[in-house]
């Protein structure tokens, strides 16, 4: 076992950071990569922040996973899978959607809320090439884990009130995961969008 200094796989510059993050952002060439068995460059987007918001803003990482789903059967008590209707094609039982998986450490309630809100209403934003001096929260979930967590988010959308889910027969195929950094203002009542 050995300890190595992390260098960018693109420009070989050493990477410096004050946060303990499983993804590494090169300030020199703006390449983001992840390690674990092998070094892999990952696609990412940084949403531009709303400059009219003066409160302190932070970038939160999300894995945006493109998923195809087919719902074969759903049995609930007091509800239906109506929430997925907007993603279904031509009145059928299959469709596609971007599942947003919060990738930083947070409490369960915030995780659920962010995952559901962003998945149900995907954010629209313009992008930028760097973080503009804003702090970014560290990533704690790998892209591989994000696919499994996408499945969890998918069922969470189905299982959330008012339905008392009893059975759900579905197929979910995750295609690709992209890292998306979204700016938020952290308030006592939870993170508030700042894009």
């Amino acid at each position, binding site marked *: *076992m*050995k*300890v*190595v*200094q*992390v260098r960018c796989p693109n420009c070989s510059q*050493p*990477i*410096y*950071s*004050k*946060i*303990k*993050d*499983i993804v*590494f952002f090169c300030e020199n060439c703006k390449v983001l990569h992840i*390690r*674990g*068995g092998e070094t892999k460059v990952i696609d990412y987007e940084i949403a531009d922040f709303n400059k009219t918001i003066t409160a302190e803003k932070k970038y939160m990482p999300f894995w945006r996973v493109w998923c195809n789903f087919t719902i074969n059967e759903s049995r609930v*008590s007091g509800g239906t899978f109506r929430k997925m209707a907007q993603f279904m094609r031509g009145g059928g039982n299959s469709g596609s959607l971007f599942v947003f998986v919060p990738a930083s450490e947070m409490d*369960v309630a915030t*995780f*659920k809320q962010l995952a559901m809100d962003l998945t149900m209403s995907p954010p629209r934003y313009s992008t930028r090439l760097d973080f503009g001096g804003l702090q970014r929260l560290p990533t704690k979930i790998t892209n591989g*884990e994000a696919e*499994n*967590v996408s*499945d*969890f988010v998918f*069922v*969470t959308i189905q*299982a959330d009130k008012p*339905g*008392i*889910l*009893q*059975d*759900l027969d579905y197929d979910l195929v995750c295609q690709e995961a992209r890292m998306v950094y979204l700016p938020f203002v952290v308030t006592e009542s939870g993170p508030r969008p700042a894009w």
Partner: protein
Amino acid sequence: MSISVGLNCPACGGAIQVADGEQVVNCEYCGSMLYLEGDGGVNTIAFKMKVDRGAARAVSEEWFRKDWKARDLRKEAKVLEIYPIYLPFWSIKMRVIGWICGYDERTYSDSKGHTRTERIPKEEMVLNDYQYSEIACDPGDLGIKRLRNFLGESEFEDFGNIPTYEATTSKDEAMKRIGEEALNDARGEAHVQHVTFERVHVLPRALSMIYYPIWVVRYGYREKMYIYTVDGVSGEIISGRAPGDPLFQSLAITAGTTIGGLIAAGSLYLMAASETMDPTITLIGLAAGAIITFGAYMFFRHGSEIIEGDFTDKKYGLGGLDEMGVVSDLLKGRIDLGGRI
């Protein structure tokens, strides 16, 4: 629970600390991001031996006196062999995430004996982190299967001159076993009696191989050999075998059968004397009497040897009953006494 080990930054030489299972660390001196490349993704950590031979021997004084061991054990026991070893353990952090749905059933009875069963739908979100350890070699007769202590000074693979057991179980085997254990624990915590839908993922978060120092002490008592092991970091007894006391065994069987019989007979007498008494109380009394009697018998049967630790043949007293799941099942209401627990 956390383990941290010291190392030096390859860029500036500064001293840094890495927590167990972490792959990434920041150097607080030069700000470099550092990455731990373990063998096959496994970090290997060795705890430092902190207990000397004398202390490992002395700890028996207190242990020999505890529980139901032979009263003359402290006087008669002779230490035959005492040596240190390092044992390998897999330490794995798991996150279990998913949903378990289904229903619980509640049965109600009215005064006329009519019963009604209500079905209560349940959907339980599972999002838990677990840390498990399991021994990575055949521990033989040492009675150690899991790490009990995760605190102490540690380094990467520095065993000194102490012999080391080689790891014989693979990473994949350990991950599979521990993954199943995490899944079962998560299912247990969800408390869904009848599961109709389950979608749960087990995500390995960190994997380490921990080498832990222990002292093995073999001692003789009346021409029989026994063993105990001492935690090389905390100095506490981890496992051991010791002779029991025939007097305690005799007292246990006498008192146990007497008390158990009185409780069972008392509950039958009360039922016969009172027409309005709930028969469930009699059934509970009979069960309690039977458990006490059986516990006393188990202690009498197996109390000739007092066993502590992860031995598979540990079965005496009420602890033995619990090993067989009787007590825990009763407490959890899995054993139905009259259908009302």
